[in-house]
Structures are given as C-alpha cells and as structure tokens.
C-alpha cells in the first residue's frame, strides 16, 4: 500500500465513525424533542457492546479454551495448569516472573525515593528530575534497544593481544577495569537480572515523580517538631518521611508489580524469552503463536489474570485510603 492509500483509509474510517455517531446522536436529539425519556442507552450502548465483545466474551472463551489440549479437540480439564506447575520449562517461566515481581518494584521504588529526597529543594531540581523521568516517555521496545546496546558483547579471548573493541559501554568499562567482557544476555539465571535492570531504569522515574509529590505534601509542622527533638537524618527518614508517605509507597510498589507481571515487550525485544528468560506474558505469546499450543497459551493468560487481580484489588483499596487522607 502507498502512503496516500493508508492515509485515505484512515480518513475514511474517521469520517465513517463520525457519520455513524453523528446520525445516531441526531436521531436521539429528535427523539428527545418529541419527549422521549430513555435515551441513555444510546450513549452507553456502543461502549457496553464493545466491552462485551472485546473483553468479556473473549475472556470467557479463553478460560474455556484453557481446559482443552493443544489442538483444541479433547478436553483435558486442568491438565494445562498442571503442566505450568510441573514441567521444567514452565517452572523456569514461573521462577522468572517471581524474580521480576519481587525485585523490580523494590529496587525501582528505592532508587526513586532516594533520588526524590536527594534533589528535593536543591538547585536545578526540575532538570535533575527530568533526567530520571526521561525513560518513562520511551517505549519499552525503545528502552530495550537502548539497553541491548549497553550490553553488546564482542568476542574476547583473554590470552590474545588483539581483541576486537567492545562497543557495549558496560563491557568497555569492564575492560577498562581489567576484567573480561561478558555476554550478559546468555547466562541464566543472571541474564534475568539484566533484563530486570531495564524495567528498573524505566520505573524509577515513575516512582520518583509520585513519591516526590507525596514528600512535598508532608506537613512542615511535623518536620519542624521532629527537628526540635533533635532526630538524626536517618531517624527523620525512618520515623517521619516513610510513615507519612506509606500509602503512596504501597500504591507505587503495587503499580510497578502489576507492570512486571504483564511485562512482555522487554523480554520479547531483548531475548525473545530464550536462554531461560521467559516470563508468563511472553510464554503466553510463544505458546499461542509460535509453539502452536493454544491450550497452554490460554492457561498462561488465565494464570496472568488470576495473579493480577489480587494486586489490583489491593492497589485500588490503598489508592482509596490515600485519597481519603
């Protein structure tokens, strides 16, 4: 397709959408003039229909599909779920997902919190924050490319004189320090941590922005009183700052945890889940589209659903609490 064709397709779609909605609303308008009362369904109808067709029905079908085998011909009950929790490959996927969810939120939040405190009230605070926040605006694919280049490895033999130059920054630093370059994305389980580093790099800015706002909202009287009592900086942090922003901390931690459960783009771009780095969301894609085991894929998607729900419920509760303060 040519560029012009694509743009025309887009314009036609937009005009068609406007025409349909416009016509519907015109009819509703005329009905209202004639005294019709129940016009609400015209307003919510399209949304409810799309949500029913796009979310509810597919979700139910996926749950049903997860009870069937790879080909979808014979009923296997919870067989796919047993596979997830017993087969060696799938256990690695589960282990990696647990790593992501346990490591990322705490490290990203800690970095964000420390940085927020370090730059709070300092000269150039806004610019300093922008540097950390920048990765948030970059797509996960873009961030993964940036880091893949950081990790880039060129073959290195410590016994030879003329090794090729390293072009990945991290390996060059290792060479400068006198070590041997590593192929970071190859060795399991450590490669998982190098993938997780990308997520931490992205999410620290999110944590920093939200926590910084919370820190600034701590009443000055409390700080002043603590200072008159002669508390040390660490005590101030431990007994004043952290307790005051606790609800916000929990919201940030859980939000990042949800993002980690669903992480797909980073794993797909960095390793495609090879070398023992797959996670549930990536394994769903691999099983459904490459391995052609749609039964197992469906079970993995449902598992993701089951894992996400309690965290979101907890998150919403904390959010309410934070709002009510």
């Amino acid at each position, binding site marked *: 397709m040519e560029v012009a064709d694509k743009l025309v397709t887009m314009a036609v779609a937009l005009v068609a959408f406007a025409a349909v909605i416009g016509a519907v609303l015109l009819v509703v*308008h005329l009905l209202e003039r004639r005294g019709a009362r129940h016009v609400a369904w015209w307003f919510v109808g399209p949304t409810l229909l799309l949500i029913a067709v796009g979310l509810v029905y597919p979700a139910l079908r996926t749950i049903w599909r997860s009870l069937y085998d790879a080909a979808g011909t014979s009923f296997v009950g919870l067989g796919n779920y047993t596979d997830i929790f017993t087969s060696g490959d799938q256990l690695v996927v589960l282990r990696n997902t647990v790593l992501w969810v346990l490591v990322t939120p705490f490290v990203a939040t800690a970095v964000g919190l420390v940085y927020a405190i370090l730059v709070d009230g300092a000269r150039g605070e806004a610019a300093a924050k922008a540097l950390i926040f920048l990765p948030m605006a970059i797509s*996960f694919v873009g961030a993964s490319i940036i880091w893949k280049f950081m990790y880039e490895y060129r073959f290195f033999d410590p016994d030879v004189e003329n090794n090729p130059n390293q072009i*990945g920054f991290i390996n060059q630093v290792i060479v400068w320090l006198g070590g041997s370059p590593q192929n970071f994305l190859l060795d399991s389980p450590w490669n998982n941590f190098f993938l997780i580093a990308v997520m931490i790099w992205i999410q620290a800015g999110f944590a920093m922005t939200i926590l910084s706002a919370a820190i600034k909202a701590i009443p000055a009287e409390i*700080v002043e009183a603590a200072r008159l009592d002669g508390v040390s900086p660490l005590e101030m942090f431990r007994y004043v700052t952290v307790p005051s922003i606790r609800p916000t901390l929990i919201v940030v931690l859980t939000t990042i945890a949800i993002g980690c459960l669903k992480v797909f783009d980073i794993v797909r771009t960095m390793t495609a889940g090879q070398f023992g780095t797959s996670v549930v969301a990536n394994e769903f894609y691999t099983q459904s589209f490459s391995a052609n085991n749609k039964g197992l894929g469906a079970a993995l998607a449902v598992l993701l659903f089951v894992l996400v729900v309690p965290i979101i419920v907890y998150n919403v509760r904390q959010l309410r609490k934070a709002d009510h303060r």
Partner: protein
Amino acid sequence: MSAVPVDTATVGPPTTPQGPRETAAAAARRRLSRPWASLAAVVLAVLWTIPTLGLLVTSFRPAADINKTGWWTVLTDPRFTLENYETVLSSESSQSLAPSIVNSVVITVPAVVLPMFLATLAAYAFAWMDFRGRNVLFIAVFALQVVPIQVTLIPLLSLYVDINVSGTFWAVWLSHTMFGLPLAVFLLHNFMQEIPRELIEAARVDGAGHVTIFFRLMLPMLKPAIAALGIYQFLWVWNDLLVALTFAGSSRDLAPMTVSLLNLTGTRGSQWFLLSAGAFVSIIIPAIVFLSLQRYFVRGLLAGSVKG
C-alpha cells in the same frame, strides 16, 4: 532588566527572620552533609542518562564506525553523519522504516479518537443520566480494567477472521478501542461528576436535551480532561507492541514502528545504524506530542484533583 516586572519583596533584604518552610526530605538532605548528597544525585543522574546518550550518539555515527569502535570514542575522534537517518526515513531504500512510521500514525489517530469519543459519551450517561442498572454496569466497566489483554487476543483474532477484518487496520483500531474504554470511561466519569449539578439542571430547565448538553456544555468544559486522557491513550497506542504484533503482524502494510524495530533486533549481526536511528525516530514523536500538549496534561490533572 527594568522591563521585567520584579517582585521587590523577594529581591530586597530579607524582612522576615524565617525562610521558606523546609520539607522533611530537604531537612534530611541538609543533615546528610550536602556534598555527599549532591554527589550521589549526580552519580544516579549520570547512570540514568548514559544508556540513552550512548544510543543517541551512535545514531549519528557512520555505520562502519559503529561496529568497530564504541560511541565514547567520538570524544577523541568526532565523526558524525546524518546517513543513518536518511536511510531510515527515505522512501527509496529497502531498509527504510518510512512505511512503518506511516503505519504508526495511521494506527494511532483513530485508536485515540474512537475510544476517547465513545468513552466521553458513556461517561456522560453514567454521570448524568438515569437508567436501569446504571450502578451495576458502571462497577462492571470499572472492574473490567483488571482483564489483561492477553486473555482476549486469540478469541478476538478468530472473531476478526469471521467478520473479515483480520489483517486490516480495523482489527488494530477496534482492539485498541475496546482495551482503552474501561479506564477512559472510569476517569472521564470522575471528571464529569465534578461539574456542578446546578449547571446541568439549569440547562435541563431551559429545555436542553442531553445531546445539546453533551455538545454545548460537557465537551467544552471537559476539554482539558479529554486532552490529558488522549495523551495517555496516544502514548499507550504508539508504544504498544503486543496488540500490533498480534493483529497487524510484521507485514510492511500494517506493522508500526515498534514491530519493525523488534524485527530488526532479531536479525543477526545487529544493524545498529538502523536500530539507533529508528529508535530515536520512534522516541521523538511521542516526546514532541507530550511536550506540546503538556499544558493540557497538567491542567487536566489539576481539574481532577481540585474540586470545583
């Protein structure tokens, strides 16, 4: 200097013994002897910036150099070129990413406009119209935010085959619309409730119907909120990989930037001259949109937090 209005109170000698009030963090930091705190902050900022800077510098280096020496060598041997960007953007070269840039635009515009408009309509009904089952339905829409899109992909794909839109932009547009609706309805509903009831009732007394109120009153008043949400949806759609990979695939006719970049990383012998320039083209567009609409973004967020 004199042209700039200056607040004399702040320029003159301090008249009050107390300075500006200090926040808890500032107090903690002040006690953490300043130089160390500043050093730690600078180290973190540098660590966070180096990765992006490295690829940005690389995108301006000659393709032959990129694979031979590290990007930091530009400090001693500065050689730059725009060739990588020309390759990525030109319509002639076979390695061009131009088609996928167009695809990204064609995917994004309707995938933002459709859900935003439908969600505004629905949010209006949930906030200001009476109908049976309103609360139950609203809670259902709110709760459906928890559905991970992975759960929906395969059934949707076969549904699109059935209605003959698989392999077209429609499949991508519809998917993004469906996935974006619950959050958009929920947030816009919250904004709508902030509008004073008297305003709506006065319009009703004057004989205005819901359609009139929606267009004349709601849309103008909600412009900041809609713009703020629109930016979110834009960033989400533009940066999305999973939905595009599933419904647009890798075809040159449909695949957006994210998918094309992913496919480039897969090829052996990493083509860093394409990847680096391509990545920055894909990064710069949302950055521009974000910066130019930031005013709305901030205003929208304020409108939500400050009760009117």
